[in-house]
């Protein structure tokens, strides 16, 4: 059973990666939208935003990457929902395969697709002036945090995909997550915000993640932000995973 886990998961991964590459709209939304945001903020709003010295794109980059991931995982929920609707989920479950490979195929696809869009966005960022003095270790740390963030959101997407009643519902859960970076330190420093908003912004997960990545890019000390960021991601990941497994068991009861 579990002896086939890796072989089966790679078949599932290959299948759903084809779904990604064959539906151009998902690629466009996942990479073009955040790039448009980046251009908009750098060339339209950026001039009026006081976010310290240096190019504004350097300040902006971490938040844009998180927005890209948050919009990317909506498609994970959508693809999972479609599998349940079409009956192919049940077909897989009636076959002699490692059953967990069905979910893991979607999770790994989400990871791969989001990392591709992250790379594309960083490359576009380089074209418009993004520069980082980060060394290899700092880059690895950034990648690690983004992977953890993606996994966390992906398991939330799995809950949504398994329990949604409609295709729209499966993707709708992502909107509040996409919105979170706007009320954080992603675009403007939190110091300019009025009291309650500032309190929310400074204590929600995105700010600690954004600040950590920004510090890593700028070769600054990450302080205790990195631990808060990791604790948020790991904590939400565990809760989301447990809830996703409960939703999964309900489906295959």
């Amino acid at each position: 059973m579990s002896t086939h886990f890796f072989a089966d998961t790679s078949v599932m991964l290959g299948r759903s990666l084809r779904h990604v590459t064959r539906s151009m709209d998902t690629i466009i939304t996942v990479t073009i939208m955040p790039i448009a945001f980046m251009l908009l903020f750098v060339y339209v709003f950026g001039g009026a935003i006081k976010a310290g010295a240096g190019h504004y794109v350097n300040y902006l980059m971490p938040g844009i990457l998180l927005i890209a991931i948050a919009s990317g995982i909506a498609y994970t929920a959508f693809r999972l929902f479609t599998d349940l609707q079409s009956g192919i989920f049940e077909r897989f479950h009636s076959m002699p395969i490692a059953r967990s490979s069905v979910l893991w195929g979607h999770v790994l696809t989400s990871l791969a697709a989001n990392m591709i869009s992250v790379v594309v966005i960083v490359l576009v960022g380089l074209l418009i002036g993004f520069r980082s003095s980060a060394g290899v270790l700092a880059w690895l740390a950034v990648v690690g945090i983004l992977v953890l963030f993606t996994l966390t959101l992906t398991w939330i997407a799995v809950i949504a995909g398994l329990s949604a009643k409609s295709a729209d519902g499966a993707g709708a859960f992502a909107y509040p997550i996409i919105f979170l970076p706007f009320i954080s330190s992603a675009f403007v420093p939190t110091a300019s915000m009025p009291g309650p908003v500032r309190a929310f912004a400074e204590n929600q997960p995105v700010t600690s993640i954004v600040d950590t990545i920004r510090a890593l890019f700028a070769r600054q000390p990450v302080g205790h932000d990195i631990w808060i960021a990791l604790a948020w991601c790991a904590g939400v990941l565990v809760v989301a995973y447990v809830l996703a497994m409960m939703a999964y068991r309900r489906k295959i009861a």
Partner: protein
Amino acid sequence: MEASTTALQVRGLEKSYDKVHVLRGVDFDVARGSIFALLGSNGAGKTTIVRILTTLLKPDSGTASVGGFDVGSQPARVRESISLTGQFAAVDEILTGRENLIMIARLRHVKHAGQIADDLLGRFGLAEAAGRRVSTYSGGMRRRLDIAMSLIGSPQIIFLDEPTTGLDPEGRIEVWKVIQNLADSGTTVFLTTQYLDEAEKLADRIAILHQGTIIVSGTLANLRKLLPPAKAEYVERQPTLEEIFLAITGSDNSDTKEPR
């Protein structure tokens, strides 16, 4: 009942959803290599039985053994013995027909996946459409692909849940041929249908599910005996609409949506 001649053995199966008591003690046996048709109206619980026998759903009580393995305690062994063609063609729309078959072959860990896919595409009249995405297929083509996917790995028992629902007359006849060939080659076929003529044409044994239990089961000859003996009556035999349709469309196999 010896395990060697019995493919399926179901005893006292019960299942409720919330407060609806769908199955109220279902019993039947299916002999190895036979075609067994489960008849019942919509909502009678046919799909519930299929889902229990294919390890997708746990019964509230009762036992079921499939290919000699208990669905509750040996689900993995059951899955090795069976294949399911569900009520709605469970094919991947974004992949091509050939990719769908190769995917299933790889999941069943059979060798030469590509060759198996090509053989099946030929057998099911899908060779020309092999490289096209399934989303462009007609209903009949999808259903044929769906059944072809179920044959990979040569499972001993195949479950077909309303395999001809939504098909045109030619599509139905195609599927009937496939089912007959399966049984001829020794595969046990468990078929659910709401079309009485389908059961009459194909099945070795027929069971009727009504209000949660099997109210009658047996061969067609057995079931006929339940009614008063046949009387000889003179009736002018008019062609059925199906016969007319098939005669004027004049094809016994149409692969593609009409060419323009």
